[in-house]
C-alpha cells in the first residue's frame, strides 16, 4: 500500500485531534484515512438520465437571469406560499 505525504494546517489538525480525543478515531492516520474514504464515497458519478442535458447552455441562462434587473413570477394558485409548502410537507 503506497504512503502519501500530506501537509495540513494547524486549525484542521486541531479539529482532527479533537475528534480523536472524543474517541471517534484511534489516531491521526486512521482519522485522515477514514475522512478521505468517506469523502470519496460521496463523489458519485452522474446518473444516466442526467447526461442528456446541455448543462453549459443552461448555466449560461441561469447567469443571464441572475444579472437581470428584475426577476419574479406570478402564481395563479389561490394558496399562499406557506400553504403550498405546507401541503407539500403534509405529503411526506
Amino acid at each position, binding site marked *: 500500500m503506497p504512503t502519501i505525504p500530506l501537509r495540513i494546517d494547524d486549525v484542521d489538525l486541531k479539529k482532527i485531534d479533537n475528534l480523536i480525543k472524543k474517541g471517534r478515531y484511534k489516531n491521526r492516520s486512521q482519522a485522515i484515512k477514514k475522512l478521505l474514504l468517506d469523502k470519496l464515497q460521496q463523489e458519485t458519478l452522474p446518473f444516466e438520465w442526467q447526461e442528456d442535458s446541455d448543462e453549459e447552455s443552461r448555466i449560461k441562462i441561469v447567469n443571464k437571469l441572475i444579472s*437581470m434587473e428584475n*426577476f419574479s*413570477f406570478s402564481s*395563479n*394558485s389561490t394558496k*399562499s*406560499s*406557506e400553504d403550498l409548502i*405546507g401541503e*407539500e410537507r403534509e405529503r411526506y
Partner: protein
Amino acid sequence: MIIYLDTNIILSHFDKTDHFHLQNKNLLDQNDIIYVTGFITIVEFASILARLLKDNQIQFSNELNKLIHKLPEHDQIKTITETCFGRLNLSILPASGLEKIIINKKEYLVENSFTLAYELGSYLNLRTLDLIQIASAMKVKHFTNFNVDYFLTNDKNILNNAQIIRKNIKIIPISSIELISILKI
C-alpha cells in the same frame, strides 16, 4: 444576526402575488443580516415549482419565457430554482458530514441532517420535512460557531410549535411580520 430561511419565505419573495411578498422582499434586502438555508430548501422549492408548472399555475414574464422555453421542463425548473437562489444574498449550507448509526448490528453512514432530524422527531411534534429544515438550521453552528438567531417561516405548523422548539433546541421560529416588527423596518 444569522437567520435561517424556510422555503415559503423564498417562494414568497419571488411570487409577486403572495400576500407576504413585499414583507419578505423587504426583509431579504437587508444587507446587515446573514441569511442561510439548507439544500433541502432548494429541493422543496424545485418540487413546488414543478407542481405549479405541471398544473399551469405559474406565469413567467415574456423575457424569462424567451430564455427558457427551449429547455426541457425539468431543466426549466432547475434553471428558475438556481436563478432564484443565485439572486439572493444567501448562503447555502454545505453537507457537514456523515454519522454512523447501527441498526441490528449493521453500520450505516447517514448524512447528519437526517440523524439530527431523526433525534428531533422523538420530541418535536413536526412533519418530516420540518424536522429536516430545523436540523439544517441547527447545523449552522457547525460552520459559523454561532447559533442561528431566528428560523424565519410563515408556516403555521412550525410557528404553533415555536415554544417547544425554542425550549428544546434554542432556535426561535419567527414569522415575517414579527421579524419586521423586531427589526423596525
